[in-house]
């Protein structure tokens, strides 16, 4: 008997072999090896990991959900309306970014939130204040969340600049500095719980470095060409 076909061997993983196939497999080392390889391949397919969506995915989805009236924005009553025009989405993205940054700056100074930051907080952009982190897991999660929000906002901000081509205000660099300051404080709060955690240490160090770089930029240059 000729060797069994690859397709036939693939079938034998799920279905019983005929007498003839069974006898052939018993005698043919090559076919057994090929069948083992197909089995390994099939089992490896079953172990393929889930995949992280691209950065900024949630921001885009959230904008769509809001525009379709499927989620409330800022605690407002949901109402169905058509897709938001481009300028409105862009403005929302800007509010998210700058509002988050302002919230960060304000939190760093220990005063109440202004409108934009408060709105961002109520919309769920800042779910848990770092100071409320009762456990290392909370703190760690908070740091991750803050970092993700920052990156999401940055992606949206870049998209805004690309779509709208508008000039940015000088205060944007300061806002970004404030957001970085907020991330540093969140990271430090987490580090108090887990001082030897290598991820947290690396994150805080790199965030501090970026914060310092922006501080130097703000000090040395009033221009806002900071991307």
């Amino acid at each position, binding site marked *: 008997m000729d060797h069994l076909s690859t397709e036939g061997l*693939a079938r034998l993983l799920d279905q019983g072999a005929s007498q003839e196939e069974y006898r052939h497999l018993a005698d043919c080392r090559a076919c057994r090896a090929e069948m083992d390889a*197909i089995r390994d391949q099939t089992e490896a397919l079953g*172990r393929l990991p889930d995949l992280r969506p691209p950065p900024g995915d949630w921001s885009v*989805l959230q904008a769509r959900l809001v525009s379709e009236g499927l989620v409330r924005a800022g605690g407002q009553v949901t109402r169905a309306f058509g897709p938001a025009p481009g300028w409105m989405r862009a403005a929302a993205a800007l509010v998210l970014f700058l509002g988050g940054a302002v919230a960060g700056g304000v939190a760093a100074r220990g005063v109440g939130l202004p409108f934009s930051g408060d709105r961002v907080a109520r919309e*769920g952009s800042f779910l848990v204040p770092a100071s409320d982190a009762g456990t290392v897991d909370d703190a760690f*999660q908070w740091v991750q969340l803050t970092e993700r929000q920052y990156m999401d906002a940055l992606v949206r901000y870049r998209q805004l600049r690309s779509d709208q081509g508008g000039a940015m205000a000088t205060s944007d660099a300061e806002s970004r500095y404030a957001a970085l300051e907020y991330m540093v404080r969140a990271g430090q709060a987490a580090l108090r719980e887990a001082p030897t955690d290598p991820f947290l240490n690396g994150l805080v160090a790199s965030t501090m470095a970026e914060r310092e770089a922006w501080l130097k930029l703000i000090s040395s240059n009033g221009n806002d060409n900071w991307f």
Partner: protein
Amino acid sequence: MPRGHPTSHDPEEEGRGAGSSARPDLRKRALSEAQLIRKACQGDAQAVRALYDRYAPRVYAVVRRIAGDDDLAQDYAQEAWIRAIRALPTFRGDARFSTWLHRIAVNAALQAARKAETRTRRQAPMPADVPVGPGRGDALLQKRLEWALGELPEGMRRVLILHDVESYTHEEIGDVLGVTSGTSKSQLFKARAKMREMLSGLDNEGEQEEAEAWTI
């Protein structure tokens, strides 16, 4: 079974997601899934976000593999989430939420793929997607498998993904693809064989390169 079937109960699998890859999100877990779903039905953005954090990697993985393309995958995944949140009030809890959502994602991806009138043949690059959590196999093998999946003809790929990756039965595949279970089986065996040929080709190339390196 190679992978936890979406209908099987597995608390570890339930908790898998972008937000749970490293440390548990205790605050969000404080709310039960039923509570999250109820709040999400009422338009609570935080509840929707919590569900997204929990299931986005699973949703993205299946639509990415069906789409075979990063840009399409993001569109398909977004469409799946929109559909799911829109249909959330109809979710009665007969099946697990993950199963329900997974099915919506598969259907959304398949329908979107069918709608694409003319599709240029993808080049099937090695995907740049980031796996969630530590890989349970070796990374090179995973890359090879993803590449080979992308090289399969559409029909074969869908059946192979649904059966061997997502653990659907042939009857379930027949339902979502609109084919008989017999067709599903024959496509599966062809797909496995084609995958095997492609992967063994890669192995042979590797061995050849190694041999050439030794002869230099």
